[in-house]
């Protein structure tokens, strides 16, 4: 053992050096957030709870095409589709819509699959509940989430290249031809 090594062994030099570093950190700005009081600002891309969206005029976007159900890797979406008369048009619609949030893995595949951008992911992540059944979001609940966090869901769609910002968004709207009954010839 050299003198130098002996000296550093006796003097605890490396411990002193390390302590100097940790003491220096007392003056560094803290990085932790006091969670319930302070919250992170999440980026627009954040994949949170799902919601169903409406167009500006309040018409439901979802056409009940079932693509989200097929694309979901955890099989947690259930769509029942039907037809409905609306302003003299017969349009397809999801009469029932369930997403089991206890099974959802927040992969965003359903949003990617939806051809009319009816689903959007919000920044909602605090919906824990003692009642597990309420975590199966049904259609009213999904539209409620979609309405309440409409801005976030839209921002998500824009951030993930699903939709353009507002002025061009109308291009992405699917317009039903004016059928009155399913086997009618379209009125052009």
């Amino acid at each position, binding site marked *: 053992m050299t003198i130098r090594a002996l000296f550093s062994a006796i003097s605890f030099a490396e411990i002193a*050096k390390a302590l100097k570093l940790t003491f220096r950190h007392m003056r560094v700005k803290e990085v932790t957030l006091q969670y319930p009081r302070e919250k992170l600002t999440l980026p627009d891309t954040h994949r949170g709870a799902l919601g169903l969206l409406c167009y500006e005029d309040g018409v439901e976007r979802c056409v009940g095409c079932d693509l989200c159900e097929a694309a979901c*890797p955890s099989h947690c979406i259930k769509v029942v589709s039907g037809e409905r008369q609306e302003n003299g048009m017969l349009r397809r619609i999801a009469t029932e819509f369930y997403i089991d949030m206890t099974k959802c893995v927040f992969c965003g595949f359903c949003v990617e699959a939806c051809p009319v951008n009816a689903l959007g992911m919000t920044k909602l992540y605090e919906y824990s509940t003692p009642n597990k059944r309420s975590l199966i979001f049904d259609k009213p609940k999904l539209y409620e989430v979609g309405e309440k966090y409409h801005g976030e869901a839209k921002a998500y769609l824009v951030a993930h290249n699903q939709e353009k910002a507002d002025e061009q968004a109308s291009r992405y709207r699917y317009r039903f031809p004016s059928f009155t009954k399913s086997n009618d010839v379209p009125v052009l």
Partner: protein
Amino acid sequence: MGEPVIDHYADDVEVTPEKSPRRVEDMLLNMGPQHPATHGVLRIVLDLEGEIIVKATPHLGYLHRGVEKLAEDATYTQIIPLTDRLDYICAMTNNYAFVRAVEKLLQITIPQRAEYIRTIVSEMQRLSGHLFWLGTQALDIGAMTVFFYTFREREVLLDLFELLCGARLTVSYFRVGGVDRDMTDEVIDRLYKFLETFPEKIDEYNTLLETNRIWVARTKGVAFISGKDAINFGLTGPVLRASGVHYDVRKAQPYGVYDKVEWEVPLGKNGDTYDRYWIRIEEMRQSAKIIKQCLDQIPKGAIAADLPMITYPPRERVMTDMESLIHHFMIATRGFEVPEGEVYSSIEAPKGELGFYIVSQGGNKPHRCRIRPPSFINMGAFDHMARGYMIADIVTIFGTYDIVMGECDR
């Protein structure tokens, strides 16, 4: 003082169980499955002679979720979220390994920009994986401060992942044929900023550990394995390289853009935990170097191959073009058809060589999807590496692999 203790190690004392005033026998000690240092759920049965480990038998399978079987019933795209959950702290590299295997089977090439993005994110993932290892290994050994410091940097990287794809851990970022979302300028700027200060941060960890007598005493010479044994046990990753064997998939069979950037494979000499610590520190420096070069070189362009039957068509086209809409429907409902064949493809994950062996019999789902997880194979050498050490070293010994049970048990 009571009865004299018989030293049954001393040669001149004959100990037979009947004559001994005390019962002398090997002790079986169960460690886990719920133990704070097992990084998951792992049970180890330790055969002890006093404090010395005579035999260590790992019992795996507590975190088995049947990923390989689940994969047989999911389309290729739907398997991507499953792979996230193998090694859940390094999801990007898992995605990469799987997607690359499928691409090899489909024989498609992906755009350059996507290759760069893939390389960047998998190196970011390596950084965060190694930071995680360093923090938790130091914490297991008893140094708490390092844990806070490494997690501070890891947080920055995870935030970048969130900005990039929306999730921090279970990213599901890769797609067959490209990636999900383009790397925006904001991500690139923040990554540059992170890389500027990162080398100093590595020095900080070193200041805390490198010469610290407790860290050195508890890692030097612990969990030794020679290069020859390491090869025979099939070890890969930092564990192998610490024993001085030059094998890194990134160099041996370059993928992504690893052949277009300059970097070195750090090698150890002693094959002990201290060397593994150095290897991981050096790999972090190299990863930072790779990311920096990639960011400088990254070209503009598409982020996914334009293959109408495999990748989703761009959104504008889906809305305006009937054919694209049909393709969109086909990909969403049925996935894509993969030709018949078998393929093995591997990448260098932070823990070692992560490979996917996919057997396809045509159709949109794999017939068999076998995963070669580095943690599992590395675990094979556990008994060999643990024998002869003290019981207090056991935490160091399985921490040294950077083991994650999610990947080990699949």
